[in-house]
């Protein structure tokens, strides 16, 4: 460790206490990756502030030294967004895990960034409410990370993604200043600044108090599982359900590979392993409307060629179906040591074609592709399995990933649905954004963080943004 970093660690220990600074090289290794371990970076040190004022003091100190930093929650992100490369310091927010208030009559809660998504859901349930965004990693991921990535989840189809559930934010800027965005009772001033912050991937500052919207637990929930003998047929069923104007609470697809993997895990849910694909359709709301929607969705599935359609009879059975779906990503280690999960969206009408193109890309590059995704949102997650020790296979993964992105963009989609850009998607930004678009993004970022110290090197490709400034005559 250099003298500068020893001095820095001592200064940070002066703020948070010695127990909450990590500097030993071996410990730093455990923070070198998030949920996408194909990217790695070792931070200069890790600091665990315990309160908003400690975050503020830490960032002010780093700012004074010109040291960059990266905020990290549980490290379940899937785009390498929470990686810090020395001299950057990793600001880990797991200690800030308090639920500050649950305001049941006004259906909102105030939480610290380190609160785990599932913990908030559980606490809300105690008062008959519900935090709707439910990323598959919700048992582990934190609300702070959800805000940074504008996280989605199966039930965001009906309820909207994270940004639709964030009312107000207390944010510590890169210079340590605390600002308040949005308000619990409506936007206090013109533009939606809280909305602007959500999805900024840690490049605007650190959210230290988050006011979220809670929704009532729906009186009726019904879930069906339909199996198909062809992936295309399942894709067509999705397109038709959406085209009919049905808004399911969730509409998810898993292909044969995903089914097999889940069924060999502790989360086996009884999915039919001989199916080419299954659709998981859930509707919620008032009894009559739900019954009608589910009946219609079931009929559409059958018309599209579904074999059996099975309904969850109990809450426990429904939970099992969902656990299988949500843990599928984590179960991918059963088929290979290394994994790259892609994240792209396409118009739902394009799903059947795009799924076939993705399968074709996998075949052409001799890669196993596993699909488990938010079909109702048109949010694809092709998982590419590979062995990182095989350089040829690694190269094929890179080419196939780009081809998949190109297919999605060509179909009218875009390069990320919910995982963010981080470091992994930077290379695809040019598929959807020109230099002027990127320049605007860079300028907005600069408005929040003129120093550029917050999560440097993420989202915007290096050198791609045209310098932002007064319009010059062309």
């Amino acid at each position, binding site marked *: 460790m250099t003298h500068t970093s020893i001095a820095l660690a001592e200064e940070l220990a002066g703020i948070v206490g010695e127990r909450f600074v990590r500097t030993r090289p071996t410990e730093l*290794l*455990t923070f070198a*990756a*998030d949920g996408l371990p194909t990217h790695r970076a070792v931070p200069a040190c890790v600091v665990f502030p315990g309160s908003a004022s400690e975050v503020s003091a830490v960032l002010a100190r780093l700012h004074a030294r010109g040291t960059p930093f990266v905020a990290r929650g549980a490290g379940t992100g899937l785009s390498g967004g929470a990686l810090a490369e020395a001299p950057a310091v990793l600001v*880990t927010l797991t200690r800030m895990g308090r639920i500050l208030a649950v305001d049941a009559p006004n259906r909102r809660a105030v939480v610290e960034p380190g609160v785990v998504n599932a913990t908030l859901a559980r606490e809300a349930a105690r008062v008959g409410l519900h935090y709707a965004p439910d990323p598959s*990693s919700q*048992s*582990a991921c934190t609300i702070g990370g959800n805000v940074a990535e504008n996280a989605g989840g199966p039930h965001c189809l009906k309820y909207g993604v994270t940004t639709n559930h964030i009312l107000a934010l207390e944010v510590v800027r890169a210079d340590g200043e605390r600002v308040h965005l949005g308000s619990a009772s409506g936007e206090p001033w013109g533009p939606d600044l809280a909305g602007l912050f959500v999805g900024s991937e840690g490049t605007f500052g650190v959210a230290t108090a988050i006011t979220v919207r809670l929704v009532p637990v729906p009186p009726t929930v019904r879930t069906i599982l339909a199996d198909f003998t062809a992936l295309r047929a399942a894709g067509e069923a999705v397109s038709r359900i959406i085209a009919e104007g049905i808004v399911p609470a969730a509409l998810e697809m898993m292909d044969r590979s995903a089914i097999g993997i889940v069924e060999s895990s502790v989360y086996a849910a009884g999915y039919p392993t001989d199916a080419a694909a299954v659709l998981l359709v859930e509707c919620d709301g008032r009894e009559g409307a739900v019954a009608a929607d589910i009946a219609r969705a079931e009929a559409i599935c059958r018309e599209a060629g579904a074999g059996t359609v099975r309904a969850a009879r109990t809450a426990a059975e429904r939970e099992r179906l969902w656990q299988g779906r949500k843990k599928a*990503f984590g179960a991918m*280690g059963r088929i290979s040591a290394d994994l790259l999960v892609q994240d792209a969206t396409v118009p739902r009408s394009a799903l059947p074609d795009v799924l076939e193109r993705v399968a074709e890309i996998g075949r052409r590059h001799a890669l196993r592709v596993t699909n488990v995704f938010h079909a109702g949102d048109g949010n694809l997650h092709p998982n590419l399995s590979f062995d990182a020790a095989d350089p040829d296979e690694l190269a094929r993964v890179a080419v196939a990933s780009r081809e998949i992105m190109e297919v999605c963009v060509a179909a009218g989609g875009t390069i990320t649905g919910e995982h963010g850009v981080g470091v992994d998607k930077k290379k695809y930004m040019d598929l959807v954004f020109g230099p002027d678009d990127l320049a605007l993004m860079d300028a907005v970022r600069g408005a929040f963080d003129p120093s550029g110290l917050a999560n440097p090197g993420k989202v915007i490709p290096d050198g791609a943004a045209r310098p932002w400034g007064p319009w010059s005559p062309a």
Partner: protein
Amino acid sequence: MTAAFAGLDACVHCGFCLPACPTYEATLDESDSPRGRIVLMRALERGEAPADDDALSWHLDRCLGCRACESVCPSGVSYGPAIEEARARIVAVRPNPPAVTAGLWVLARPARQRLAWWASRLARATGIPAALARGAGDKAPLLLQMFAMLAATTPSRRRTGTPTHRSRGRERPDRHAPGGTEATAAPAPDTTAALFRGCVMDGLFGHVHDATIRALGVNGVRAVEVRRQVCCGALAAHGGRPDLARTLARENVLAFDAAAPGVPIVTNSAGCGAALKAYGEWLADDPLAERAHAFAARVRDVSEVLVERGLVRPGRLPLRVAYDAPCHLHHAQRVTTQPLDILAAIPGLELVPLEGADRCCGSAGLYSLVEPELSRDVLAPKLRAIAVSGADVVATGNPGCLMQIGAGALLAGMEVEVRHPVELLDLAYRQ
């Protein structure tokens, strides 16, 4: 155990194990999480971190070995054998603290333990350790904590008027009549099972062995005593001494094959059960490998044996009971429903839910003595959940858990009693 690290290959770094880990819950530091420890173990395997690295051993030693991460891992990462392998590599270059080395030495031979257990039971019988520890608080000095643990092994005084067996463990195993003398309507035994006695179980929980023998008897299983059996080796394996663990395993295989060939082996200790069931892997490269596999396949937790047979209906026991699942039963052996089935079969017994019943209590073998601070932090939510449950009795089938929760409750001045499920079943049979 060289293949142990290969069991980590399935980890895709998803992080779904983080919330299951009691030490991560206590410290919220990735290095104290299963995923972080897997990174450390991989670094050790690849030589990126030397085995004598301070940070490496600090975080790996703080692992409870509860294996709750394995129960939630979608990819089926085999964490337990890897952490034992890592410990072995660390201990090879950085020996255990003298107290641990001495403890493992004592437990390795029954003869070395007799005096210690005798003295402990004598001290326990005076009631002085319990009196000193009661309400002393969780920050009490280590000696008081140990007194509390000893006091937690005291046989139940419920059901006054009927003398409970005051077991002196191994000194008089043959005096246990098959079926138990007080057992109601004991049928003629139609099968036998060899009782695994263990070290701590036999030294301080003779009354649980007695209850086990009686409850098995009521259900038509005659318990066979096996002489020359030794400690299962679990503590040695967790303590980075696979050599010692394998020596003990070999002795047990030979002893049980000699005295009770082909007979099911029944244990009432979750920790021992998990170890005994792993003998096949422990002795995979040993001349005894085949016999070790066969031995492991015969091992059953007492709750498995009883539920498989279909329980003879017990008498009434009007108690509010919370079940706390020992990690080495629930996560390591995946025996999850049988102890609950037993408790549910007792008329009058009200089974109350215990939040976090599948989470470690912080006992973890010698952990509570080696890492007292973190052990206490892990225990704290357990004690809070017990208080909330309103239970009269916490039932748990492992000596370490009985002592840890019992001691914690005693130090906190809580009124709750901590018992092995089989003790409650036995009590119900004797009503």
